[in-house]
């Protein structure tokens, strides 16, 4: 960032954009190959792919959107953190509620059976 005469540093250079781009391509291809070759068992594969997506999110936030590289009060980062909180509540909350909604459509006897099965309880 030596040649930045502008007031606002952290806007990137050809080098930082190229680095972000190449890393993103590698992460995309990595996730694709893992799925195409069924590298792991299904459960691990899901974690691996989501992990790669989150890694790419961070790479692009830093190298393309320059998040956290702004000066002093960092309001962008504050708003981003709040949005992220809302997103997590929305997505995890929806999945959690909807995956457990079956119980309210059942008779008490069915509910007992389902809970015993879901929680792995051996009567």
């Amino acid at each position, binding site marked *: 960032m030596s040649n930045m005469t502008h007031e606002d540093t952290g806007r990137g250079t050809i080098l930082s*954009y190229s680095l972000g*781009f190449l890393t993103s391509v590698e992460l995309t291809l990595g996730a694709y190959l893992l799925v195409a070759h069924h590298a792991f068992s299904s459960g691990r594969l899901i974690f691996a792919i989501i992990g790669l997506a989150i890694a790419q999110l961070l790479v692009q936030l830093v190298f393309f959107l320059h998040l956290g590289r702004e000066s002093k009060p960092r309001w962008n980062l504050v708003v981003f953190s709040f949005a992220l909180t809302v997103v997590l509540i929305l997505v995890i909350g929806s999945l959690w509620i909807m995956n457990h909604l079956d119980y309210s459509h059942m008779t008490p006897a069915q509910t007992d059976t389902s809970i015993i099965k879901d929680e792995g309880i051996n009567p």
Partner: protein
Amino acid sequence: MSQTEAIEKDSTSIFGFWVYLMTDVVLFASLFATFAVLRNNTYGGPPGRELFSLPYVLTETLLLLTSSFTCGLAMLAARRGDKRTVLVLFGITFLLGVAFLGMELTEFHHLAAEGNSWRRSGFLSSFFTLVGTHGLHITVGLLWMGVMMVRIVRAGLGRATLRRLTMLSLFWHFLDIIWIFIFTIVYLLGAT
């Protein structure tokens, strides 16, 4: 208006645009949540792994990723005041965006033609809403990019143009990030 005041005003506008983007994140989050909830509700129809072609979607992903990169390079050229390079790079970004959108619409058309439209199942309704909303954003981004290129040709790279280009580039990078999650959650996880 002094130079510092002008800079202050620009960064306030850009921050306002960033706040808009963060609310757009929440819109996409609700569509992702809907998709995640409905992903197995195929109503006897085909699941994602029978409908989607991974190499095709990978190509789309790489097109959009490359366009995000050329958009960033265009911004660097814009700050240098290099009008010709800016136009060439935004031209490439625009064409990559059009290619992406074309591939997406082709996929939609194939799905609908085979009877797997949004009417088929809850899974497909949520799929078309999520991916279609992203496609709509891309369309808006392309129109905006077209308008900005005309503006650059006519008015050059003034302060106001640079401010708008900064917002446009934020928008474009943001759409690429949303696409990574569509690629991962809808297509890759759908294929496992």
